[in-house]
């Protein structure tokens, strides 16, 4: 990866000639693999919007189109695209126009065309990196006399080379058998190389070793490895922005520092815009927001007639922007001020880290004194196992935070790591029932089942050399959301009108449990399954019928009647003599009960009504009972007691039939 702000020019030079299409049955041909490498590479450049300039040269083509072709020289080489920033057009062209052709092209000739292209098209401009990537199976006749001149030329103009081949490079000649053992995945190796391929391989090696690059042979890749590496879109890179400030301790001790975001929840750079479905133009679509009163007519209100307000609990307080600006909390702007120091163990409640970032704080660049002063602080904190609690404000308009600055000492650098801590208002102290509960306490057998599961699923293990190996590192995985996003964009750009492709297998695999673990944990999981019965609870979401409620309540009532006599009993069985008086007390109680719109209370009301009825029957005087029931029935709709009435009717039927 090159540094920012530097200009890079790359020529992709691909062999599309006759032999590239050869493949063993069931295997992808060299052509297909090479095309994939190019596609992935260009895709990556387009969607990461780098400013790398790219050209595409094909050789082995049926036609010839290049500036050097003359008198039968430099034949079957076509400059497909001149040096330019890659775009979707190029992706489409590669998809549709780069096809296997039937001629043979000299890869050294093609290389010369590429060098010439780089030379003429970068002339007068400054580039920091010129690169040619050559993709071929090396299965062509070559004019090797020019090799030396080419090497000299490459060295002089500072052009670097990369080769992408169907087979790996042998580092020494005895390694022949070795390659067969280790590489069933590379077609061509197993069958042995042709005479041309062997000869050309020597030329490639000679070239790469004579160029002034360390480990030149490392720049010879196989198609497959390249695809794997290129599969992952380059991670979204952002230029770190320096935040110069002063760390202060009290009024008279300050250290010049500079802060950088080191870890942050990176969001996609671009938002979706809304376009018209027909024209695909965003200008054809307009969104408009109108305001209206919450009345029946939805009376529209003009923007000018709208003021700002805030909710204060149940109140709405009009609060103009001007007033708000004037009255709001103000502070002195950017700061990194120490409030005090505290033990690290008191703060490392990982779950109380707030915000979405980690800042790294260094001493100001080129200020050695600040460097020493900050180093003293970092080391002091480290030795005491303490952290600084600081007030941090990014600038005058941003809200100040409280946070912790941890010492961080690495081999080549020292810094403070800042993370935001919660405010009192942010914390929710929930209490949860203890799990130390007889019902849930796992047995020893259950615990040991979990133990063996953990054993089988440890992702960090020591190999035979005592070195730790981590089988799964999330921080090395590119964000799958971005990968998938760009995969779909690429697909839509080159094949519009077709459905989106499935998630790429490599991505699925990267997100999954490592295969070794899956195998290892199978038995412990089976044991676990047997030891811990898990049953999904069926959701009863169906509404109960009133009859069901009645039955349930009846059952409950019996219990209640035993356990407690509610006041009704006193009234119903007391020494009151006249039905009229009882009736009045009962109806009063019924009304009291009905003020609770709740089945329980309904049931009690019904019991009262039943008691009323029984008393009336007993004394052969139904007048009061009947008139009360009439008036109650009349008032049902007004009081919203339909449910109660239904229950009453049902209940009477249930009890008297």
């Amino acid at each position, binding site marked *: 990866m090159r540094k920012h702000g530097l200009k890079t020019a790359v020529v992709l030079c691909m062999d599309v000639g006759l032999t590239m299409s050869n493949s063993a049955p069931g295997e992808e041909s060299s052509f297909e693999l090479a095309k994939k490498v190019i596609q992935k590479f260009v895709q990556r450049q387009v969607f990461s919007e780098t400013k790398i300039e790219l050209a595409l040269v094909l050789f082995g083509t049926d036609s010839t189109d290049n500036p050097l072709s003359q008198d039968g020289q430099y034949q079957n080489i076509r400059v497909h695209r001149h040096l330019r920033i890659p775009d979707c057009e190029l992706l489409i062209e590669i998809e549709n126009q780069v096809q296997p052709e039937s001629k043979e092209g000299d890869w050294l000739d093609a290389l010369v065309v590429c060098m010439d292209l780089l030379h003429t098209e970068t002339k007068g401009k400054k580039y920091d990196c010129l690169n040619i990537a050559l993709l071929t199976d090396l299965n062509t006749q070559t004019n090797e006399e020019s090799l030396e001149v080419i090497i000299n030329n490459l060295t002089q103009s500072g052009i670097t080379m990369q080769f992408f081949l169907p087979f790996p490079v042998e580092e020494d000649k005895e390694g022949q058998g070795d390659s067969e053992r280790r590489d069933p995945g590379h077609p061509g190796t197993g069958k042995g190389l042709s005479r041309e391929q062997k000869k050309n391989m020597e030329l490639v090696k000679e070239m790469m070793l004579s160029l002034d690059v360390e480990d030149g042979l490392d720049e010879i890749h196989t198609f497959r490895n390249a695809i794997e590496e290129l599969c992952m879109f380059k991670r979204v890179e952002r230029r770190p922005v320096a935040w110069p400030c002063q760390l202060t301790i009290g009024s008279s001790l300050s250290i010049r520092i500079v802060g950088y975001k*080191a870890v942050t929840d990176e969001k996609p750079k671009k938002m979706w815009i809304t376009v*018209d479905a027909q024209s695909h133009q965003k200008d054809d679509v307009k969104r408009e927001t109108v305001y209206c009163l919450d009345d029946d007519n939805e009376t529209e209100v003009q923007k000018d007639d709208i003021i700002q307000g805030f909710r204060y609990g149940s109140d709405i*307080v009009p609060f103009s922007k001007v007033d708000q600006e004037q009255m709001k909390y103000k502070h002195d702007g950017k700061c990194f001020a120490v409030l005090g120091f505290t033990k690290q163990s008191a703060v490392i409640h990982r779950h109380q880290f707030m915000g979405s970032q980690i800042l790294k704080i260094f001493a100001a660049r080129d200020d050695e004194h600040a460097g*020493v002063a900050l180093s003293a602080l970092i080391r002091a904190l480290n030795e005491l196992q303490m952290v600084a609690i600081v007030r941090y404000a990014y600038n005058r308009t941003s809200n100040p935070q409280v946070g912790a600055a941890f010492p961080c000492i690495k081999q080549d650098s020292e810094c403070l790591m800042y993370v935001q801590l919660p405010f009192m208002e942010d914390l*929710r102290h*929930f209490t*949860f029932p203890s799990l130390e509960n007889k019902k849930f306490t796992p047995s020893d057998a259950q615990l040991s089942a979990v133990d063996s599961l953990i054993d089988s699923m440890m992702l960090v293990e020591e190999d035979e050399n005592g070195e730790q190996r981590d089988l799964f590192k999330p921080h090395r995985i590119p964000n799958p959301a971005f990968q998938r996003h760009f995969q779909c964009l690429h697909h839509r750009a080159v094949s519009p009108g077709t459905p989106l492709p499935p998630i790429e297998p490599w991505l699925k695999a990267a997100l999954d449990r490592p295969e070794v673990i899956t195998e290892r944990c199978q038995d412990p999981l089976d044991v676990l399954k047997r030891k811990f019965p898990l049953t999904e609870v069926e959701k009863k979401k169906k509404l109960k019928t009133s009859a069901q409620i009645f039955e349930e309540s009846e059952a409950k009532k019996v219990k209640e009647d035993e356990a407690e006599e509610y006041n009704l009993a006193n009234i119903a069985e007391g020494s009151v003599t006249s039905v009229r008086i009882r009736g009045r007390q009962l109806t009063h109680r019924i009304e009291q009960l009905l003020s609770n719109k709740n089945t329980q209370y309904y049931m009690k009301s019904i019991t009262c009504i039943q008691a009323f009825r029984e008393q009336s029957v007993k004394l052969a005087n139904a007048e009061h009972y009947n008139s009360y029931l009439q008036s109650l029935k009349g008032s049902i709709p007004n009081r919203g007691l339909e449910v109660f009435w239904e229950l009453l009717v049902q209940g009477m039927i249930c009890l008297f039939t």
Partner: protein
Amino acid sequence: KASLGDFFTSMTTESTRSPSSIGDYKITGRDSLVFLVDASKEMFIKGEDGEPSNFDMTMQVVRTVYTSKIISSDKDLVALVFYGTEESKNPRNSFKHVYVYHDLSEPGAKRVQEVDALRGEKGAKLAAETIGSGETSLGDALWCCANLYSDIKLRLSHKRLMIFTCRDEPHGGDSVKDRQARTKASDLKETGVVIDLMHLMKPGGFDISLFFCDIVSPPEDESELGLQLQPSDKLEDLLKRVRAKELKKRALARLNLCLGEGINVAVGIYATAVAARKPGSIKLYRETNEPVRSKTRTFHTQTGSLLLPSEIKKAQYYGGKEIVMERDEVDAIKKFDDPGLFLIGFKPMEKLKLHHHIRPAVFLYPEEDEVKGSSCLFSALLKKCSERNVFALCRFISRRNYPPRFVALLPQNEELDEGKVQITPPGFNVIYLPFADDFRTLDPPQFPSASQTQVDKMKEIVSKLRFKYRSEGFENPVIQQHFRNLEALALDMMAPEEIEDLIMPKVDQIDQRLGPLVQEFKDLVYPAYYNPESKPAAKRKTGGAEKKPKVELTEDELKAHVQNNTLVKLTVPVLKDACKQFGVRTTGTKKQELIDALIARLRS
């Protein structure tokens, strides 16, 4: 009547909930809390040494809960009811000696003020005048509260009632009243109301077994030691107890933790730390101050006709091309799998790096109601992870159409304080882990390390400024100020109450504690001429006052730039210097203005 246009208009009410509150009330209903406070004479007895009375303390707690509800859950309903009063005030006035001071509704500024009025010496006087102390019938009081609940037309999801009293025998042994109270309490509990007792100190101790043990709701599980709590005699204790109960835990999501094929543990996800924000503003109609609704519609620029969802697509611009997708495709791209947690494996705790932090953590607790047996397996997993000091690494999809993240499940054991109040609940903390994209490549400046003498001096400074950090120790000054302002406006106060900015360094105290240490440290690390306060430009390592050499342009060079149209390439300072040099007067400072002025001068 709704027109076709309205049908396709996405309507949003402006009065959306503040983002700091969690959970969807539309689905689950509102939370409610009733403070049922004893107003008997005993409550007003002041402690020795002028300690505030139990009543005073209770009002302080009620006020704190009111204001915190306003800030963090302003849709919750709260009521304040007194019992054992002389006066009576309740909806149908059917209950004597019960005084509904605030019925169930959202707390507002006025209510805060009204509770304030009951605090302190003056408050006791006001209480004596307005509510007084009289007979006690807890049964009537509970019944009255039941009516408060049933009068609410909104759907209530969580109903809690807290009784504040210092009398363990409120009816003085009247068994009829005791029985009535028990009956009412059980009626309430049957309707889903949770009754808590916040018992306060009284001489001779508070004996729950005399009466209240039959009133309060049984603890959430058998092992909870709720009833053995000591009565509160300190405000902080009481506040802590109320706080612990007052907030309903609301799961962000309920999903499965999948350990392997067919082994699904049901878990709830809870947000225990959410950045509280200033709530958004509401748009009001100027004339009436009533909130307005906003309607957003999408229409075709040329034809002016409203666009149906099917007439809209989404696009992104890359590599010179508009790449267009259907709206459902945009969602589909983000979908990897159904929501859930999938166990990848385990790692030793030291593999979790301090700086692998991208967003606040959430909390995991089993949901026995969804999958029976979850609690047992969860408990075993928690126990073993904790014992072996490992964390579980999981792939986590939190909602539908959300891309996956990896998370670390950190075991957390239950902790209780001396008063048996839970400080940390048992469960897993879920730490979000960064992907490769979330790291930025830095080029750290390199410096020599400090010497041991220098480090030791700093250690002295650090030790002098040691304090005990508490996570609840810092209020957010921005939010506090905002609400004080609103309070002042809502209550027509002259000026908002002053806030104390707790995250401001106490510079004077620090200076005083450090004394000569600062100078001693500076002498060790800074040379005499060095001033870290000065502007960076003036203190290059060279130390001198030399400025960047000026890039002076000759007239010819400038003319060439004008001719080749390359003035744009020059920087603003250079252009400004050029203007000065050639006596061009410019009013503007924008680059284009400078260029235009130069061109005008040199062409003439």
